């Protein structure tokens, strides 16, 4: 087990390194940050000064070497745009995105699980068909479009919720959280819902599929035959079994929500990490992009590790490491 973890850790390091290298080359290929950042009326002398100031006058491999040396000392570089440490910028914006992602996940479970359960238990009822058909909406409508629709309905026409922004925040563990205030929660509702649409559909479909399979399993049939109440069969036997894949997938989805809620954060002017990464990509703010993606890849590795560990604990048939083969 320890050997396994150590090996995974080493692999993680390699992946992070690979990520930083890809981003370096990628940004270099996309364009020149100075061309984008510099004032259009800057003359050639000023342009050269800016290139030098940002350390872009060195050959790419040297820039990378400089970056690695500093990274080993815990310095991931300063943003070209904000002139602040990239890591600090990212961490500043993290709470906003975290709470949005968790909010969306909670929405997905609250709405998705019951509907999926129903659709799985009564696959042929009319309501189930409606559920399944409308769940398709969740992943076929473009997020930006749904976002604007939500704003138009709930903010412009009905006036129930504030249209955009993050509202008041409260302090917890030295960070600013908006779920601690009523105003903050009101601001969170729409973007979280917008972000959860895809997840709701996902949960509905996974739950339904799981329920339908489990209901045909021998132990469920046996439980029913024993005369257990349908409610007990459903909620104890079936539910326990389907929760595992649902939680796995939702966990993985949580990862990508934290990483890339780019569109939602843009439409709702939500000052989170997704907004930061899209803004940074647009101006090729390389230090922020590199630092950001290194963090994200670490997060995904961690999530996947947890998933693998869970798998092996739940299903002894899956061995952690097959040696020799």
């Amino acid at each position: 087990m320890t050997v396994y973890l150590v090996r995974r850790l080493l692999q993680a390091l390699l992946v992070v390194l690979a990520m930083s290298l890809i981003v370096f080359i990628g940004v270099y290929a996309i364009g020149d940050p100075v061309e984008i950042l510099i004032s259009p009326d800057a003359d050639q002398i000023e342009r050269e000064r800016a290139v030098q100031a940002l350390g872009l006058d060195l050959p790419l491999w040297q820039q990378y070497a400089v970056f690695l040396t500093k990274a080993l000392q815990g310095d991931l570089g300063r943003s070209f745009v904000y002139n602040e440490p990239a890591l600090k910028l990212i961490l500043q914006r993290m709470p906003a995105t975290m709470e949005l992602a968790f909010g969306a996940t909670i929405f997905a479970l609250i709405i998705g699980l019951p509907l999926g359960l129903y659709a799985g238990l009564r696959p042929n009822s009319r309501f189930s068909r409606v559920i399944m058909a409308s769940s398709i909406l969740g992943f076929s409508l473009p997020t930006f479009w749904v976002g604007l629709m939500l704003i138009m309905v709930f903010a412009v026409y009905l006036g129930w919720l504030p249209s955009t922004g993050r509202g008041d925040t409260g302090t917890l563990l030295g960070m600013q959280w908006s779920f601690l205030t009523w105003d903050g929660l009101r601001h969170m509702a729409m973007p979280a819902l917008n972000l959860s649409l895809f997840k709701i559909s996902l949960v509905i479909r996974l739950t339904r599929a799981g329920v339908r399979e489990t209901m045909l399993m021998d132990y469920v049939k046996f439980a029913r035959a024993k005369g257990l109440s349908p409610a007990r069969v459903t909620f104890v036997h079936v539910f326990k079994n389907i929760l595992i894949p649902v939680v796995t997938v939702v966990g993985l989805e949580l990862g990508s929500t934290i990483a890339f809620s780019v569109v939602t954060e843009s439409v709702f002017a939500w000052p989170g990490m997704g907004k930061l990464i899209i803004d940074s990509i647009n101006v090729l703010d390389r230090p922020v992009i590199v630092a950001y993606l290194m963090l994200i890849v670490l997060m995904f590795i961690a999530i996947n590790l947890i998933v693998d560990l869970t798998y092996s604990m739940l299903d002894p048939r899956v061995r952690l490491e097959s040696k020799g083969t």
Partner: protein
Amino acid sequence: MGNLRKLALAAGTAFIGLSAHGALAQSVTMAVAAPVTSLDPHYHQLSPNNAVADTIFDKLVNTDAKSNNLPGLALSWRAVEPNVWEFKLRPNVRFHNGNEFTAEDVAFTLQRLPNVPNSPSSFAAYSRPIQSIEIVDPLTIRFRTAAPHPLMPLDMTNVRILDRETHQNATTEDFNAGRAAIGTGPYRVVSHRSGDRIEFERNDNYWGDRAPFQRVLYRMITNDAARTAALLAGDVEFIDQVPTSDLAKLRQDNRIALSETVGLRLIFLGLDHLRQANENSPFITDNDGKPLGKNPLQDVRVRRALSMAIDRKAIVDRVMEGAAVPAGQFLPEGVYTHVPSVTPPAFDPDAARRLLAEAGYPQGFRIQLNGPNDRYVNDARIIQAVGQMWTRIGVRTTVEAQPWTTFVGRAGRADFSSHLIGWGSNPDGSHPLRNILATVTREKGWGSSNRGRYSNPRLDALLDQSLVELDEAKRVQLVIEAQRIAAEDVAVIPLHIQTNIWGMRRHLAHDARNDELTRAQDVRPAAR
């Protein structure tokens, strides 16, 4: 009856607007499109940053809404010798922290400009002509230059003045955190959440007109539709960069008022002047897609034909929904360096076809028009419309739009045969001349945005003269003449000059600025 009800309804909403606002008349919430990236006024030369800096700080020379120079922290200025400018400073001005403003602060500021670490686009160009600074007395300062520098006052409209005492060791981070964002301007910073919002409070000791509101919340909402929606929902009371697609609707909405003015940003097409007449231009072929063996854009008749083929009025009416004026040059009417004899080229497809035939292209040719799709108002739509019009005179056009990120580098390397781009000018014609039309010359700092590599010795000579001409009337004539030559030679194809538009709830009024800056001090309660 119907009208009466409408009237009553309008009065009702107006009343609600007033009463709801009566309680809050002391504050206003604004939303701008472009995020402010730093409160350090010398870190990054970027419009949104400049707009906020103008709220917190002052310059020696301020500008009014039409970009005319106004006394700012300097009361007056003149060239006492050909190479020496003298600025008389305003007495009794204090910074937000109570420190007094003196000539020392001006000298400190000019020394700081080239020394802001990591700056991606500094203000150093404005202090570079100055060889030495002489403090005559606490309220008089002199700048000595190597050559006569008629543009000194204009340069000073870009330099926000800091306090030597406060800012001696201030870093960009200190400014961003609000600690060091201390100026002499009409509002002071209360708090700043990067990329999200800035809170301002009135500076009660301001030397000029008292700021209209006690508090201002300055938010950033990048998405166009979301910004308009926030205004309609009443979450914000004022927005900038109103999308043209929403104009028609907002104009009919009696809760909303708009303020607008013709701006200083020309949208134009740059053409490939780099490839010589006998070379292939990268995106031009004959009608069968084979290389042409020559660059037709070197022929002024072809350039003129392409310009005449464009129905500028149609683009303004249909694509820009009226939020622009057709243009034949960089600056709009009413600006002192506008060329009176140059009018927007008339739309004449038949004459364009004749010119093409005369130039040896009776069957036209094929061209690709490139452009950004996230930079200028309706940029991707404009190139499609131009593509339609060029195709109609026989120049079969494909269009390609891409994000500014990948576009700007390629345009800068003169990779394109024709491209759409914009230029936000200052009101002096020397600005576009130097940057876009002058021959690329590193030592002079010319042509750094001359992406088509246009070169015309006559224009260069006139520009050279104008840059050292201290007689303002003569200088303006030189600048006008150089611009006229460029227009006649179709150095670039001007399309239109954008109209700057702000939207607000009816209880507010705003002085529309032609330099596009959205400054908190320009928003005030509407006169009742």
